[in-house]
């Protein structure tokens, strides 16, 4: 069982992850893989309930750029925490494609990446239920200075260094 974190707190997850078989989707918000989206696009487009898509780390932002208005959620999978591609995917979704829905990290992520996730455009993280919540909470506020622009900064890169404000800014 996984926990969903937002702003360092465990929250209820309204989304259901669906498999790649032909099983009908639940009535509520549902997540499908990119493969299933490609396969069942017309069927899934006809749904009224919110739809999310789950992408592997080698599946990059441009692959769903044209379909983003269909999705309320994009889930980006880290096969291992050292695979940093989803950081670029999230940032591209926000900056190049103007995606304003939820971007969620899942798979192997570690607390030390929490700020990086938020600063590249993620707003929720799926962690194992055994995860140490203290570590995640702490990670959010351990470092309060950033030396480069992140996704949360409205202003241009006028300063290399700025104080970070996490919390409200992550509630997109």
């Amino acid at each position: 069982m996984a926990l969903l974190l937002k702003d360092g707190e465990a929250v209820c997850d309204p989304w259901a992850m669906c498999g790649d078989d032909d099983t009908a989707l639940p009535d509520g918000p549902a997540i499908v893989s990119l493969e299933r989206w490609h396969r069942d696009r017309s069927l899934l487009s006809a749904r009224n309930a919110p739809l999310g898509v789950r992408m592997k780390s080698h599946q990059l932002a441009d692959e769903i750029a044209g379909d983003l208005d269909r999705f309320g959620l994009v889930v980006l999978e880290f096969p291992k925490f050292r695979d940093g591609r989803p950081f670029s995917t999230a940032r591209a979704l926000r900056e190049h494609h103007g995606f304003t829905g939820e971007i969620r990290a899942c798979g192997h992520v570690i607390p030390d990446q929490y700020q990086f996730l938020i600063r590249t455009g993620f707003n929720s993280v799926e962690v194992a239920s055994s995860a140490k919540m203290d570590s995640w909470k702490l990670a959010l506020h351990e470092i309060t200075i950033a030396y480069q622009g992140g996704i949360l900064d409205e202003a241009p890169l006028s300063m290399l260094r700025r104080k970070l404000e996490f919390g409200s800014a992550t509630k997109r």
Partner: protein
Amino acid sequence: MACQSSAVHAGIYHYDELDRRFLAERVAQFRRQVARRLAGELSEEEFRPLRLMNGLYLQLHAYMLRIAIPYGVLGSHQLRQLALIGRRYDRGYGHFTTRQNLQFNWIKLVDVPDILTELAGVDMHSIQTSGNCIRNVTTDQFAGAAADEIVDPRVYAEIMRQWSTLHPEFTFLPRKFKIAITGSPCDRAAVAIHDVGLRAKLGADGAIGFAVLVGGGLGRSPFLAKPLREWVAEPDLLAYLEAILRVYNQYGRRDNIYKARIKILVHEIGIEAMRAQVEAEFERINGPRYRLDAAIVASIRSHFAPPPFTAQHERSGGFERECASDPDFARWTRVNVTTHKQPDYVSVTVSLKPSGGIPGDVTSGQMEAMADLADRFSFGELRVSHEQNLVLAHVRRDDLYLLWQELGRHCLDTANAGLVSDIIACPGLDYCALANARAIPLAREISLRFADIDRQHRIGELKIKMSGCINACGHHHVGHIGILGVDKQGIEYYQITIGGDASENPALGQVIGPAVGYGEVVGLIERLIELYLERREAGERFIDTVARIGIRPFKEKVYGAAA
């Protein structure tokens, strides 16, 4: 801080309250991580990436801590602190590396948080000296001083240091990423062997811009960097780097760590495809959000203002008299002294390669002596060169004799900069967990064989670079003579290349024949040099002769005509 008063004119980036707060937070974070590790809450596997992000390696015998010396520039107070750390937490010495950093080789894990606190006290750290992130940016050891300099690269190296520090998108790259920058046509930063090489230059209107090279690197597949763009204007520098890094982060190989550097991506897709992708990305992100504001550049530049040089209206003639009366001094000035922008000043290379010594090793006592000499003679500032020497960048010509005498008291006056005993060597099998062969003892033997300093001067410029394994930390591919240690069924062998060059005319050396045993290397080098001395024409350096006559005569000299 009182200890910083002596380095007030040092050309270092002076921290402010925000920089210090960042560093204090980062140290506190690592202190908690170490406590969790020592308490058994973190396994070594979980701890490994955390310690690597703080420059802490587990080597053959102990932990090694690699401390960042941003673009190789140090204030005297910082070097004193390194001396203190060496004495208190290590064995009384440290080791300067080809990455312009300092390594302590005998560190205890439990001490590391305290060491990082001591470092933070002088605005230093070990962040991003390891891990698959953007590493310490390196540059010309004579930056801000060299007579041939067009643009001061320290300004941009510092901007890149800040921009890359805990970059949220580029801290989990396929592999490490090294950037080097030069601001002189004469490339002393070896930019062509870095993932990204920058050559700062001036446009027709006097504006600053950069030629960008990409995909250089040594290791098991050596490549010289290829030109990516002739001109990136200063305001676009960070946006352009973001574009390169984003392409690399998304498309660099992650299936094989030996093929994960950007050089392999560039090699596999070709420079044209790489350029097209970077340009497309640059086009998309090149908005005001990423523009490097002229005000930021000006504010960073103010940290590197020239020190208060004293102008001399007439030459005292002292230097010339001292050279005439003391041939040892004159000999030292011929190779260890470099022309300065200010005619009354010079830059001094302080050799860390005494006869039979360990390249790059310095005792805490020598560090303190160098800090004092920097205060007396060079505005409290020092540099570390990628050739593993120290530099006093701004020394009055009239002070040289006194400085040289003082250096002599600490065995720091070896007159061999750029000569055969000024050897680059990695730590090799004496320390490193990756090494196949020893490098340090061999460097010492070569140095001892050529101990006659007059003979070294007769041989002239000759750069020997040695690595104890294929990872090439000792830059052997670009050595005029390169030595690579290999392992053959548990026995150390050494493969020799010649004709490599790390300068503005970069070249990879060519293998001259089968690898030889440890005991044969010194004799082999002796024969290479013999042939060079027989065949050289007036004014030719070793590599010039290699370029003119090719490697065959050298090969025959070493292996016999049948080779």
